Structures are given as C-alpha cells and as structure tokens.
C-alpha cells in the first residue's frame, strides 16, 4: 500500500513551500479576501462545474490573486448551471450563470481584478428601487 505520508517528497515539498515568501496566511483575514463559491450539486456537476472550479483554482494561483474558493449546494438555478457566486469585500454578492471556462476567465479578469461587471448575472439579489 503506497501512502502519501511515507513519501519523502512531501517533506521536500514542505521545505520548498516554507522557503517561498509566497505563502499567504489565508485564514487570518478571510473577510477581506474575495470569495468565490462554485455551486457543486448534482445538476451543477453534470453541467461541468468541476471543470469550472478546477480552472478557477488554477488561474487564481497563476494570476496571483488572493481569493477563497469554496463549494456551495444548488442555488436553485439549475437551468443556468454552472453557477458561481462572487463576493468582493464591501460589495454585494453577485451570482453568475452559465460559467464555463471562458466565462470564468472573463469573471476573474474583469470583475475580480478590475471591478467591472460582466454579462451573465443572475438577479438573485434584485431589489426594487423603493426597497433600497
């Protein structure tokens, strides 16, 4: 039985990571970080949310963006899966629908990095003008 903990590689990896200054303390100020929640229920998985989340996890690292990526359950927008909720500190949360790899790239580049809204928003937080 091969075990990951028996691998000296793990120790090597640990030392390599510790020497890097890149290590970020994510847990200290989670509320100041961008939160990205990928819906991961049966409907979402069948529509390709695993690929979307995989891409987001890889790209955030590549582009050096500090963000917390988590999963949520079905938000009830099964017709628009995969759905992704993005919470930028100080702003209202926004849910995007039909987020494939291409859309995810657009969301990261334009909304997360630049603060610009992109198409494909599901108006779940919709409020009438007199409610605001």
């Amino acid at each position, binding site marked *: *039985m*091969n*075990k*990951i*903990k028996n*691998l000296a*590689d*793990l*120790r090597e*990896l*640990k030392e*390599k*990571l*510790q020497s890097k200054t890149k*290590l970020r303390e*994510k*847990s200290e100020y989670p509320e100041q970080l961008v939160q990205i929640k*990928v819906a*991961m*229920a*049966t*409907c979402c*998985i*069948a529509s390709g949310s*695993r690929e979307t*989340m*995989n891409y987001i*996890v*890889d790209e955030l*690292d590549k582009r050096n963006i500090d963000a917390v*990526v*988590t*999963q949520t*359950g*079905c*938000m*009830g927008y*099964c017709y628009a899966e995969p759905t992704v909720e993005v919470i930028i500190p100080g702003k209202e949360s926004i849910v995007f629908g039909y987020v494939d790899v291409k859309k995810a790239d657009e969301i990261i580049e334009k909304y997360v990095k630049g603060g610009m809204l992109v198409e494909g928003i599901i108006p779940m937080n919709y409020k009438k003008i007199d409610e605001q």
Partner: protein
Amino acid sequence: MKDLSYHILDIVQNSLHAGARNIGIDISESTVNGMLCLKISDDGCGMTPLMTRRVSDPFFTTSVKKKVGLGLPLLKQNAEQTGGTFTIESVEHRGTLVSATFNLRHIDMIPVGDIASTFKILIAANPDENFIYTHTSDRHGFELNTAETRDGLGGISVNTHEVLEFIVEFINNNLKEL
C-alpha cells in the same frame, strides 16, 4: 453523470452537507472478477430508517429549492445497469455508508474518469475535512489521507496550490500502476 469520478464528487457533497468530518472513499477493483466496488462512508449526522429507504427515490429531496434529488438515484442506475448493486446504510448521529458495485465487463459500465480532479476540487474547497481515499486492484493499492498529509506539511494548508498539484500527481502516478 458521465463517469465514476463525478459520482464520487457528488455523493461526497451529501456527506459534507451532513456535517461529516471524516469521509472515506474506497474503491476496490478486480479485473480477475470483473468487479469494481465503490464505498463512501462518513461520520455525518446520518438518517432515520425511513429517510434511508427513500433517498434512492429521485422525487425525494431535503432541498427546498427543487423537487428532485438525483445524486443517489443516478449512482444506483449506473451501478444496476451493469448488473451491479447499490446499497445505503445509515445510523442516525453516527454516519452513512453508500456502496455500489459495478460489473466492469458490462457494455454499460461507465468509465472511472478523472479521480485526481475530483479530489483536487474536494480538498481545495474543504481543507479542514479529512478525506481517506483508498484504491486497490489486483496488482497495486494506495491510500491518500488528508489528515496525515496535513500533519506532514506542518503549518502549510493542504489547499495551497502546490500541495494540490502534488496530490493530483500522486493520485495519477498510482492510478497508472493499478
């Protein structure tokens, strides 16, 4: 669901939703017998006997946002269409065990798929939960225990990108030897 790896991702979401801290994913396959056995166990809140009987009904769900619950029924269908079996056992406040067997030689057998991706996503989103993944075949076997990995890494989080890539490589290398 196109393959087994998606089913694993899907069923484990149930365990996480049930508040499980330790989730075991066990796959044992034998080309000699032509059988594959998938077991997913957790220490979540469990279910009552009545609910356990009803969960493989596609029109039963605990969700208030939709009227269907397809995760377990789809797994049941994919197992049974190969002549395999599907069982679910649950004890309230103790946990749940989902088991499915597949006939590897059946024409309707779904592929195993990208298991490494499934675990990458699970660990990335749930760094504090313990996943124990064991996979054995006639020739080889391996285990990934995120609790042990966490200990081995000291203070470094298991969802650091380099660690995730390391885990993906570990799984893929071992799957090749199966």
